[in-house]
């Protein structure tokens, strides 16, 4: 029984870590929603596009090589050089800023003062466009992320369970308890997510641009009337969301390689947003943690033999639906989410 209790704690700790990975995706949604009132359906595809761009730049892949080869009958794929990880990250950030600028120039500027649902529909279109554009630009083959930075002494993103934690805790239970398993990649993601939250919260609350972002979110016209450039703000916020998407893409891509399915991590971010609120940066983190712990502990309980002995049945693969059920339960009591701003509409 002691072992089961300890394994329950292990499930909760892993849930916390996994929840933070969900939060990395949810953060991008919050940033754009907070600053523009737009629910950006394309956030998951932005994570995919960012990660694809990063790996392709690193490998020196020629953009649109398929198209070039098919059009001109050439047989090219790589420039013949490789780009160090740090420089590739910087170049990818530039691409994401360019992407934000293009989104504003070609999409958002035509939709100022439109109903939120129209902006939402536009991001759905953007997501589908980006899916195809990304494949056309970099190919649909699976790509492997390598974040090794020898000059800085970084061998790459850590993988695998932390032996230190396992060995330090293995004596807590009987010989059937093998110590707590915590993935080093998840620990890294948690540290990066915490840093992101701190930086973004400070930026949003205390900087002039941050205050402008919030003003734009409240009312486009009012913000413009006091001299805030709506279009500049949108470029800034989409750029920041692009960088956050890149971070999420790197962390999730490190687990599975960079491939189309990365864009589906959006599905994991939705219950986090519903629970944490669409307008709160810390809410995205707390929401992620609650969802992560909730789904992992629930799965641990209902799949265990002692639950089966007591109830006569066990359940598996509950995580996908349980996260939404948990979010819906919270919504009953707090429709704006745990940390969301209460919306009062006068009629």
């Amino acid at each position: 029984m002691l072992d089961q209790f300890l394994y329950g704690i292990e499930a909760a700790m892993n849930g916390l870590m996994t929840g933070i990975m969900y939060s990395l995706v949810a953060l991008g949604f919050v940033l754009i929603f907070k600053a523009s009132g737009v629910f950006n359906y394309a956030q998951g595809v932005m994570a995919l596009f960012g990660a694809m761009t990063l790996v392709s730049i690193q490998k020196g892949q020629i953009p649109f090589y398929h198209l070039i080869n098919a059009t001109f009958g050439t047989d090219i794929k790589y420039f013949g050089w490789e780009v160090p990880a740090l420089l590739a990250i910087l170049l990818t950030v530039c691409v994401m800023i360019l992407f934000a600028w293009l989104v504003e120039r070609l999409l958002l500027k035509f939709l100022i003062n439109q109903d939120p649902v129209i902006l939402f529909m536009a991001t759905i279109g953007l997501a589908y466009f980006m899916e195809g554009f990304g494949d056309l630009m970099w190919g649909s083959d699976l790509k492997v992320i390598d974040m090794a930075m020898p000059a800085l002494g970084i061998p790459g993103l850590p993988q695998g369970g932390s032996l230190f934690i396992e060995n330090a805790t293995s004596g807590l239970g009987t010989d059937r308890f093998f110590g707590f398993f915590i993935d080093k990649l998840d620990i890294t993601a948690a540290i990066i997510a915490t840093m992101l939250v701190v930086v973004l919260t400070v930026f949003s609350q205390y900087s002039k641009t941050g205050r402008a972002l919030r003003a734009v979110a409240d009312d486009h016209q009012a913000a413009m009337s006091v001299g805030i450039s709506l279009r500049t703000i949108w470029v800034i916020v989409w750029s920041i969301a692009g960088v956050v998407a890149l971070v999420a893409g790197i962390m999730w891509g490190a687990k599975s390689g960079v491939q189309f399915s990365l864009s589906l991590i959006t599905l994991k971010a939705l219950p986090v947003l519903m629970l944490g609120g669409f307008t709160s940066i810390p809410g995205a983190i707390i929401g992620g943690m609650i969802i992560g712990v909730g789904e992992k502990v629930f799965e641990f309980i209902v799949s265990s033999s002692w639950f089966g002995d007591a109830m006569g049945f066990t359940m598996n693969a509950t995580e996908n639906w349980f996260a939404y059920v948990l979010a819906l339960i919270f919504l009953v009591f707090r429709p704006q989410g745990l940390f969301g701003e209460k919306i009062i509409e006068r009629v």
Partner: protein
Amino acid sequence: MKLTKLAVIAVAATMVAGPVLAQLVFPSLSYRTGPFGANGSEVADGFADYMTLLNERDGGIGGVMTVVNECETGYSTEKGVECYEATKGSGALIYQPLSTGMAYQLIPRVTADGIPMLTTGYGRTSVANGDVFKQVFNFPVNYWNGASIAVNYMLAENDGDLSGKTIALLYHNSAYGKEPIPTLEALAEIHGFDLTLLPIDSPGQEQKSQWLQIRRERPDYALLWGWGIMNQVAIQEAANVRFPMENFMGIWWSGSENDVIPAGMAADGYKALTFHAMGTDFPMFDDLQTYVVDAGLAAGSGDNVGTVLYNRGMYGAMLAAEAVKVAQEMHGVAQIDAAMMRDGLENLVISDESMAAIGLQGFGPNFNVSCKNHGGPGLGAVAEWDATAQEWSLITGFVPSDMDVIQPLIEADSAAYAAENNIESQCS
């Protein structure tokens, strides 16, 4: 006057229509986009390149050029059915949809339309019973054979005794992933091992709970029945919890380069089932390089020739082409139709001689197809990943599965389908 008008119309229509060109049409319901695009592209390239090779080197099959009619499905069953409906009127000879979901949806349609379908290593397993499924084939191997071959391999490693051992099955929580469960349950009863079922919801990016359970319960073996991102995450998570990679084995859809490369050296020793060889160490590939890749006619960039999934697509095309040759010989015509193609499939013989003739001796198992047996002998091999050399290699020959267990399951499932659909015996 009327006759003159009719004659003019007839001449005009003939001129507009032009001569009907003889073609052998092979629709390819591919998925180069979507969540499984990385895998689907390689299979589609292999299929298309083999047909291109036949055109460029041999002038088609029996003097008739082949046409690959590709339709993008994005791995969506609905789009797959749309593609089928859109292409079936083009003279389609055979469908190979490369999706269990699509295969299930197409079984009644191909049966009604009289177009054969080949679902090698996927789809509904019991279509192996040709007495019920006249139009559908799944030779040379199916999921249930795969489950049995995996268990046989484990038996061989344990001196024929798996009693008291535990095998965990991590499966895609879908019709595809659930296919091996009845066979594994039957085999568990016979051999006395415990079977732990661990479903993973699609797409399978998050598997922490399942791997924590494996870490707690320490099964002796783990079997993986996944596709796409689920495979890459599973192999990475197995490495994370330090599950012994030599005791981790995937079905053939969980054993491509795409599945193991993201985990790096940690994937070394991972095993997977297969029904064909890997690499390019066969004479046919020399021709493929000369006539297709070097000539700039490859469907893709040409750098995936010899990968597991490329070879699988190529193998599917080869089986279809060989069936065309049989059909042409049986019916004495070069331009065959779908009904003749079905006859060709049903009388297909793959032997050392026939494989040697096309430069692929030893690439796949030898087998015969018959009216009652659309599934072939159920032979498969085990391959192992060498992370240092970055290549798969076969560690067994094409070995048999336990047909004493599988055949009754096939008969029971197909009999149920026949009863539901009022199907009479197809083989007299």
